[in-house]
């Protein structure tokens, strides 16, 4: 396993970094402020780099990782291994929840059921600015409810959790962060004590660069936005002075470049994945993946915290197609970068389902 300089060359210098935060705070060289993540000084570590081993953008045999964590779960080429899919909503509102409040409810359940000692979530500083929190009290959940669209390196807090002696941790993360969590465990040196992680993955199309805040400050001077949402018709920015509509086109410029290489929309390696349920506001889509994820959902249901409904088959197909489209776009970008020798692909492109997607997409724009 190479070290920090290789990470710099392959991931940081190529802007492939997903800003998951897994490499931060255990290394004196890797530094972050806002959405900048850099190797601040040349790293002398040339082999066994911890940063390199956990990064979701360094080469990984994702099939093997999937086999390791989700063995025996039926594998879906579009949305990863899962057991069942539901549409779900929380019975009681928990703070400024995004859709059905499912993530907040699952976290609440995990703590109440003592499945975990603490949870790592992304709250906010001033509405839009994300801030990771390590929380041990279910009462704090409503403070952090709701989605953040600006990228946040929340996994840096894993170090703090270890230092606090937390053994069982629930982590809510973007797909890249779930990938990093799995790599942390998969590549863990034997002397490092295990951290029992319950991963709640979020559906994610992209995250935004922090310069989006500068755009808002320029476009809407004086307005402080507290929330953001992306219903089907576009982007909504909510403030005390009402809601502003921003077109997806305007947003695109601020999508982090690292997100273009992402092949995972539904957090395929999570114990349980949660996203919006597009046909009806106030509902979530939930993909139950591992036994653990299944257990968590069941406990929430039996405590009557969640309303769990059948998932419309046509909607599952739409979800699959959306995820497949993201994979196709990401593969196209990775292939382009590899062809132009900007970096070596961090996946084995001959693996399934990449090969099939490349085959069916070839000839189309971008390929």
């Amino acid at each position, binding site marked *: 396993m190479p070290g920090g300089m290789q990470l710099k060359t392959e991931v940081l210098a190529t802007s492939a970094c997903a800003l998951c935060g897994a490499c931060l705070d255990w290394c004196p*060289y890797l530094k972050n*402020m806002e959405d*900048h993540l850099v190797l601040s*000084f040349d790293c002398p570590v040339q082999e066994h780099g911890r940063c390199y081993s956990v990064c979701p953008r360094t080469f990984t045999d994702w099939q093997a990782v999937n086999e390791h964590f989700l063995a025996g779960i039926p594998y879906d080429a579009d949305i990863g291994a899962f057991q069942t899919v539901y549409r779900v909503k929380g019975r009681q509102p928990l703070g400024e929840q995004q859709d059905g409040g499912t993530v907040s409810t699952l976290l609440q359940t995990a703590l109440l059921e003592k499945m975990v000692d603490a949870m790592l979530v992304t709250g906010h500083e001033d509405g839009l600015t994300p801030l990771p929190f390590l929380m041990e009290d279910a009462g704090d959940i409503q403070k952090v409810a709701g989605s953040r669209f600006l990228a946040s390196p929340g996994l840096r807090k894993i170090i703090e959790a270890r230092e606090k002696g937390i053994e069982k941790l629930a982590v809510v993360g973007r797909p890249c962060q779930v990938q990093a969590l799995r790599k942390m465990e998969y590549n863990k040196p034997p002397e490092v004590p295990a951290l029992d992680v319950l991963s709640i993955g979020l559906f994610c199309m992209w995250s935004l660069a922090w310069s989006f805040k500068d755009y808002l400050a320029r476009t809407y001077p004086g307005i402080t936005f507290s929330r953001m949402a992306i219903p089907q018709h576009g982007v909504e920015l909510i403030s005390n002075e009402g809601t502003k509509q921003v077109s997806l086109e305007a947003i695109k410029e601020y999508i982090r470049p690292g997100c273009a290489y992402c092949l995972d929309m539904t957090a395929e390696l999570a114990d349980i994945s949660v996203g919006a349920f597009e046909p009806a506001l106030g509902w979530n889509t939930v993909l139950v993946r591992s036994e653990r994820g299944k257990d968590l959902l069941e406990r929430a249901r039996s405590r009557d915290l969640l309303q769990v409904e059948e998932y419309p088959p046509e909607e599952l197909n739409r979800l699959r197609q959306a995820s497949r489209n993201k994979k196709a776009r990401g593969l196209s970008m990775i292939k382009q970068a590899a062809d132009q020798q900007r970096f070596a692909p961090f996946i084995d492109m001959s693996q399934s389902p990449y090969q099939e997607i490349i085959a069916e997409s070839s000839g189309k724009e971008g390929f």
Partner: protein
Amino acid sequence: MEWMVTANEPGKTYLMQGNEAIVRGALEAGIRFAAAYPGSPSSEIMTMLGHVADDMDIYAEWSTNENCAFQACMGASMGRVRSLCVVKQNGLLTLGDSLHTAGLSGCKGGVVLLVADDPNAHSSTNEFDSRHQARAAGIPMLEPATFQEAKDMMIYAFELSEQLQQVVMVRSVTRICHGRGNVTLGELPASPSQPLPIGEWDKLISINWFHDLQFTKLDQAQAAFEENPFNWYTGPEEPELLVVTSGTGWLYSVEAVDALKLGDRVGILKLGTTYPLPEKFVLRYLEKTSRVLVVEEVDPVLELNVANVIAHNPGLNVSLYGRYQKSALPQSFELNPDVVIAALASLMGIEYQAPQTGEVPADAVVNIPARDLTFCAGCPHRASFFLLKQTLRIHESNGVVMGDIGCYTMGGNRAGHFLLQSIACMGAGINMGEGLGHLSRFGFEQPVVALAGDSTFFHSCLPGLVNARYHDANMLFVILDNSATAMTGFQPHPGIPLNCMGKPANAISIEKVVEGIGCSVTVADPYEIEATTQLVYDLIKQPGLKVLILRQPCATLAVRTKGRRKVWVDPDLCRGDECGCGRFCSKTWGCPGNIWDYEIGKAKIDEVVCIGCGVCASLCPAGAIKVEGGQA
């Protein structure tokens, strides 16, 4: 025992440092006023004068800059007392305009400008040859070749200055200033001279009407130099080759002639009064030889003056060799006996094998690894440079950093992670930053940072800051305030409440000055790496002119007053090479106090060197470095 510098023991011989001899000479000359700005190799002179000021009833000051110092001497000169101004070669250029106007006006009481050059730039950014300035400003110049002359020339310089009513420059070099030799003391004045009343028509006016008068003074100086005990010849009546030399060149020449046993073939014309050149005196020896080698530090100043004599005397049949166009000696860097011996041997057609270092006895050879210049243990500059480099890297906008002159100039190399992108003269950083920052109107987007130390701030940044404020420069100006002129040995500056003579002074607050100019100013502690990194990050994002004072006293000075806290590595917590930090403390942080224990393969603190600042403890990713009484 009485200190030899002030000992009233005429005729007694002491082993003296050149700078001590200069001080002694100035005291024997009866100076009442002395002003300087520190700069190696001259700094000890004013420190000593400040030390003896009370006893000798003189006034001594560390001026805010060299220009202040020189003009102050000119002012004291109006009161008809003898004044000494001491600078290094760079400082001479700082007072350049003043020197040229003083050359026109002349002086009343004697004014001697002692300039200490630094051939090879041992402790300088350049090896500028000050002698050009004597010629350019039209003032006489003397060059001591021995430690005795360093003392004696001071007395002669003041006599000459008063005789001509002209400033006289004495040009020393590092090897004279910092070398040691025998000096026989002269008389100290029985009673100090008193200032004389200045009449209504007593004036010092610099105006071009006096340009011709200036040449008359030079002619008078030249006449005085024709018969002068500081100039002499040794060697055969008609030498095959004549060495013309001044300053330390004379010592090397004597050694070269001796080493090559050329005493009966080569003559040495040693000149102590090198501007204006005593032409008749020199001509007398040029007529008796056909080849001339000029040996001097650094530039071919004497050589070109000799060439001038040759050009104006067509009857001479002389070939001239020296440093000009490397005809015999290198064009740059300091001379030494070996170089001069080789040049002389070559000109005389003698085979000469320089002694090899291999002749050093085997047991005397020590394998010392090559080491960079670096900051002292605990130096706040190390922390400042670390956090500035880190912040600019994190900001990913290729911030450009303008350096300045002081200890922190070393931040241009590894000690400061090669942060500095410009190193020029004192006060240059803020002005270069001001200019570059204005390019933002043309689409230049990189942040601009300029650095200066506290002493440099007062020395030459004030006009720059006014300029930057007035023009709303787009830059971050960082004042590295270690509350000392540390590079040259902790001389006081206007921010320090104790003056050159050890008396209380009206210390000036840097932040009040900055605020008075209308700048927003933030004061932060460079030892607080994380918080200050965040602060700098926020500041560079803001447009316009920002001023940040990074304040932490020079560690070498602080340890004398505050004592040192114990810092140690807990070997149970330090994970050694298994850590993954790649020996961050000793390799990247790089404080001399952070070393590696090769026996146990873990980090270690060098207790002899460590001053206990505790910054490394805050940076260790394993929390393995412990500080007595908790962290800094």
